[in-house]
């Protein structure tokens, strides 16, 4: 019918292509998805599969050559005491960093979503994004100076006659150390600083979609502010928290630079992977170890889903 009506009128090529794509949605979708599918499918999934395959290969310890034969020795080695320690330390750090980021990000995100308007909000966005514009290494070494024994933080605490607080913290087992820059506490502080923007922005986006009337309705129905927070605000922020936690958790799990610069010399997963594939040349074991964060994140997402984190989406 349409073709009949248009017969005679010369149709430009551009119009014909546009019409064809409009009628054949499948073709349009295919055209849109081919480039990302090539990228994600071949480059990304392909390298993941190569990683998986490598983790089942062995290493000839005399020649240092990778032996392309199926073996589970790498995974058996993962279960050894030292490696388990590395995994447990990294996961514990990732959890602590994630929780601290949630606690710090919620008030900021809530303020941005509900109260800040116009210029204030723009200024806050910039303040949160600004650190991401400069090099991660520059910021890391800046923190090294701040946290050093003779650094700004201990100087400030001394001026405030609060050195004893710092000393008590550094004397605490597990988190303490020689100085902030040589303690797990320092590593934790720097991780929280680095990943905080990745937590604030998704929570802010989630809270922005919560109309103020919901909070008023909760209060109207008799809930006190704490009740309103836990029953209305927090559940509606959870999708944002889950999204932010994926960032903070996986970024901490995979990082191998921060713990090398700041902290005591205990190892994190990323550092061991880096050493094994670089210095030691044991790529199969490095591959097996780098599957750990993937499995942990998968478990984390599964748990979050079980807890209903994505129900409000």
């Amino acid at each position, binding site marked *: 019918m349409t073709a009949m009506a248009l017969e005679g009128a010369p149709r430009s090529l551009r119009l014909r292509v546009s019409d064809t794509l409009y009628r054949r949605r499948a073709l349009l979708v295919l055209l849109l998805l081919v480039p990302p599918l090539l990228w994600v499918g071949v480059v990304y999934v392909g390298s993941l599969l190569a990683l998986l395959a490598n983790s089942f290969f062995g290493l000839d310890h005399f020649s240092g050559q990778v032996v392309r034969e199926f073996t589970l020795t790498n995974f058996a080695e993962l279960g050894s005491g030292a490696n388990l320690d590395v995994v447990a330390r990294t996961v514990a750090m990732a959890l602590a960093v994630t929780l601290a980021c949630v606690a710090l990000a919620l008030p900021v995100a809530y303020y941005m979503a509900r109260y800040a308007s116009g210029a204030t909000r723009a200024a806050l966005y910039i303040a949160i994004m600004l650190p991401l514009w400069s090099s991660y290494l520059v910021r890391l070494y800046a923190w090294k100076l701040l946290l050093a024994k003779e650094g700004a933080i201990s100087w400030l605490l001394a001026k405030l006659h609060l050195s004893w607080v710092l000393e008590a913290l550094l004397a605490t087992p597990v988190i303490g150390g020689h100085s902030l820059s040589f303690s797990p506490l320092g590593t934790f502080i720097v991780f929280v600083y680095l990943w905080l923007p990745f937590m604030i922005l998704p929570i802010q986006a989630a809270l922005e979609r919560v109309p103020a009337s919901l909070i008023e309705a909760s*209060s*109207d129905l*008799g809930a006190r502010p704490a009740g309103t927070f836990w029953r209305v605000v927090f559940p509606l922020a959870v999708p944002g928290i889950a999204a932010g936690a994926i960032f903070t958790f996986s970024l901490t799990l995979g990082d191998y630079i921060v713990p090398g610069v700041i902290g005591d010399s205990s190892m994190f997963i990323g550092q061991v992977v880096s050493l094994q594939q670089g210095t030691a040349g044991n790529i199969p074991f490095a591959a097996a170890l780098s599957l750990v964060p993937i499995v942990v994140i998968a478990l984390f997402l599964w748990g979050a889903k079980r807890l209903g984190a994505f129900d409000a989406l």
Partner: protein
Amino acid sequence: MTHAVALERVYCDYGAVKAVDGVELAIAAGEFFTLLGPSGSGKTTCLRMIGGFALPTAGRVLIEGRDLTDAPPYARPVNTVFQDYALFPHMNVRDNVAYGLMVRGVPREGRERRAAAMLELVRLPGVGGRRPSELSGGQRQRVALARALINEPRVLLLDEPLGALDLKLREQMQAELKALQRRLGITFLFVTHDQHEALSMSDRVGVMNRGRLEQVGTPREIYDSPATRFVAEFVGAANLLEGDAARRFADGAECALLRPERIRLGAENGARVGGIVADSQYFGSFVRLRVQVEAMTLAVDLGAAAGAPPPSGARVNLHWDASAIHCLGVGAAGGA
């Protein structure tokens, strides 16, 4: 006597804007009271001060005789039906309705029974397990009503609750709300900019303009005997007679109101005045003529019983009863 709600010389400023400018209002227990006014007239701010979401700059808010001016919303015996319904998207309908009981620590079994009864009351049984997003606008509105009523408030505040519904549904909800209010005996304070809603549902109406309460009265008083020029023009269609016309037709009053539907067409003999039909507008149940009478234009509403309306340019003779003229007092100058 204790009023359900009383506002005593209440002011509310937002910066330089006087949202509410000295409102004095007393609402009797069991009354269906409507605050009517254009947007920005301060009616919603009044409601929010009673609900506890806005604090007056000056004056007192009394609920059942208790001074609750500064009390937080959760400490007031009133509940609100919000304009956007404000249903919690992460809870199903049952948990939404039972929310008020949940925060008060009522055990699950008891609150689920009550929630089911409330859903029955708003004629929405069996949707308890659904999410608000799965309901239609009209159904959400009923859920919001059930949720606000479950705490058995002494006063129910309704902030333009029917604004988002289409006309048929709105008329149906108006009737249901009115019936529900009679049955429960709860004081309803209803805010709307829709005069039809205000006139058809309310026991009394308060008309607001620029933060002031211009008139409080029964719907009939508001419509037939508006106190000010603003009320006359805002509620219903109005012919305002001023100057010469007022002197001639309203015994020398400064300003008088003549409703379009009170004017009839008739014979030249005994007519109050004659004029030329300038144009006509068809409204279904009536036709509104604009009749040029000397320097002024009068709106004349003709019902279907009046027969075919005269064409534009026709000469017509206008009749009305003396009682159709309502003089607006000297103090009636206020308003736009």
